[in-house]
């Protein structure tokens, strides 16, 4: 029984990470109807931000234990980095695709490809080239925008400025390729390790088992995030506006709520939560360009099972999926049934699914079965649509 309890605890640890990530996704999906396939990459950005902060603290550390505090700084930094990335994504791409969910899905997948390759090959050279391009293109657009006949020449301006600034940035980048320090990638394609702060190593002994402190930390972090989100949505002005836009966008716009700003803010908030999730997963394993991909489908399942725009549904779904994946995958559930003689066949059946990948197969089957009973999640959105 203790084993089962430990399994549930570990599952809750995984479920909490899923929950933080899924919260952001669910909020964005509930508000804008947008599935953000780049959400996993925003987690990855958070994880890389944690890595950078950790390195900075390692340099700073003079043996007085300052290093261990990096995680406290890394959390807000990861939040900010991902939130800014999300803000750019919303203002730059998603804003133009509002009301076309499938196209948004593809566009965000494109962004996720770019981000994944970006962390692999980013170096000073690329940074300089990108900054140069932005300065030329957006600077030029800004200058031209003041002309009175701007609307008439807009198409031509983009057609000329875009290739021109691309060419200049490309040539500048190519000219500097000889410089080895500039051309060295910052992170490279390999997985990087973030060392857990000393005070989170080890665990709470419980007989033959151990509850790792790092997982407890993640659980506490999740609870804090949930409390923060709850406070934000229910007690702050912007939370009220977000909720009102989620319920009825047109009516809110009529009442003077700036829906564009609400969209941008919500997207930044959701992305920031992804950043925090990214920071949390550095405690569980190494950081690589594909780290977001491991979580993304599970996160979506949380949103699908939980129902749209409902915090409570997301919590239940994330914990259920996390716990059941862990219990099935680690074989803890199979061993429980082994002790009971009459249920040997159940144990045999469960043993077939005893590996992380096979557990996923089983959980998916369970989810599909669940959706046959409740097609729109645990807590479906109430409303008078003709669709459901």
């Amino acid at each position, binding site marked *: 029984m203790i084993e089962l309890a430990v399994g549930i605890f570990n599952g809750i640890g995984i479920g909490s990470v899923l929950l933080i990530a899924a919260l952001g996704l669910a909020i964005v*999906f509930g508000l804008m*109807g947008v*599935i953000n396939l780049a959400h996993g990459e925003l987690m990855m950005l958070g994880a890389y931000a944690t890595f950078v902060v950790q390195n900075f603290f390692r340099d700073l550390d003079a043996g007085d234990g300052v290093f261990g505090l990096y995680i406290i700084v890394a959390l807000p930094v990861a939040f900010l980095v991902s939130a800014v990335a999300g803000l750019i994504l919303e203002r730059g*791409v998603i804003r*133009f*695709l509002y009301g076309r*969910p*499938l*196209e*948004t*899905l*593809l*566009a965000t*997948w*494109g*962004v*996720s*490809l*770019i981000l*994944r*390759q*970006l962390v*692999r*090959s980013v170096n000073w050279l690329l940074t300089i080239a990108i900054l140069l391009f932005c300065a030329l293109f957006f600077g030029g657009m800004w200058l031209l925008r003041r002309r009175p006949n701007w609307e008439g020449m807009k198409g031509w301006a983009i057609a000329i400025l875009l290739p021109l600034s691309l060419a200049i940035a490309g040539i500048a980048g190519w000219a500097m390729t000889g410089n080895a320090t500039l051309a060295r990638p910052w992170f490279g394609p390999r997985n990087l390790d973030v060392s857990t702060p000393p005070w989170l190593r080890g665990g709470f002994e419980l007989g033959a088992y151990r509850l790792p402190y790092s997982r407890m930390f993640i659980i506490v972090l999740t609870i804090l995030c949930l409390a923060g989100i709850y406070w934000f949505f229910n007690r702050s002005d912007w939370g009220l506006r977000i909720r009102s836009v989620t319920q009825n966008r047109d009516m809110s716009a009529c009442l003077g709520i700036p829906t564009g700003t609400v969209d941008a803010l919500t997207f930044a908030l959701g992305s920031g939560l992804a950043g925090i999730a990214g920071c949390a997963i550095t405690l569980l394993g190494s950081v690589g360009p594909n780290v977001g*991909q491991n979580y993304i*489908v599970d996160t*979506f*399942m949380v*949103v*699908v099972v939980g129902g749209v725009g409902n915090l409570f549904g997301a919590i239940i779904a994330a914990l259920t999926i996390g716990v059941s994946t862990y219990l099935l995958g680690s074989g803890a559930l199979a061993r429980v049934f082994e002790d009971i003689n009459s249920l040997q066949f159940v144990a045999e059946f469960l043993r077939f699914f005893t*590996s992380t*990948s*096979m557990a*996923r*197969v089983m959980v*998916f*089957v369970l*989810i*599909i079965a669940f*959706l*046959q009973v409740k*097609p729109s999640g645990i807590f479906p959105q109430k409303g008078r649509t*003709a*669709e*459901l």
Partner: protein
Amino acid sequence: MKPSVTHPSTAKSPRSKWWLEPAIALGIAIAFAVIMPLFLPVFRLRLLGRFVALAIAALGIDLIWGYTGLLSLGHGIFFALGGYAFAMYLNLQLPEGQIPNFFSLYGVDELPWIWQPFYSLPITLISIVLIPAIVAGLLGYLVFRNRIKGVYFSILTQAALLVFFNFFNGQQELINGTNGLSTNRYEIFGVASGAPEAQLAFFQLSTVMVALVYLVCRWLTQGRFGRMLVAIRDDEVRARFAGYDPTGFKILVFAVSGAIAGIAGALFTVQTGLITPGFMEVPFSIEMVIWVAVGGRASLIGAIIGTLLVRSAQTFLSEWSPEAWLFFQGALFLIVVTVLPQGLYGWFRDWAIPKLRSRLGLQPRLVSYPDIDLNPEVQQEHDELEHLDG
């Protein structure tokens, strides 16, 4: 003078030349299949053959995404199932009593029952089409029955893809797990399937298949069935209120699309020489969608053009620099979605050709509701009214 009345039966009906399009499509395909080998080196020809096989899968995607509006991110499942079926048949082309080598690695000395049917070529050919269709139909039934749609459908197909990937990856004893099945060394009709002659035959088979699948899709999308698909895409609720049951149509079209992907997978596998669960990875399935998006949705021909263009661009760019390709691919997704929502075909149709016509001083072509004047029923009504008047 009373104008002469055109009777519906004598009117030029669009069906009178029904054989013209199939003839043209097959003619182009055969010409392509004969001419290409003449001036392409063997290596490039193999690549082209693979692209053509992928174009078949893109046709299937166009059928369900372009026409029905269901974005499936899990077509890799059906693609790989078709591939596995054919690879299993090839792997069994051994002397009596032998079983494929890899089984000995895992201590299996008897052929698992799931392999047994693949001794026979007819059963294999049927299962290349049928297994993916059944899996797609089943998945479609479970999903569409509850009116799960839009992004939910996309996410569920993606999850299903992941599940199949995990399952195939984990089954070492059954289908060689991660390593997959290789086909190059095995014989088909007495020729090693990796040999140049066999590869040429596969290339030609692929081009003919592309034409055939294209024609099947054309046939499906014209007429009532196609109208129903478009109705589901444009307003499913209204279609339901009009008394149709979209669920059955959706399940059927998903199954057909899966079957098409299965054919594509089989042809792709024999030309690659290998099938692994990697075919069921998420990026590959999403990539299929972008071929259709680049070529132009709901145009069928766009799917073929898009696949050939994007895949060729990928080959040349990755030969130059693999990093550049990934950036380019990401940008391609963004550009197609934001700037070219109708794809290249749509751009030509809606912008480039009218623009060219106006530059040449031609009158813009007036477009009325599709063929309403040619519709026999409408004409008959028209005639009857005239009779009443007269």
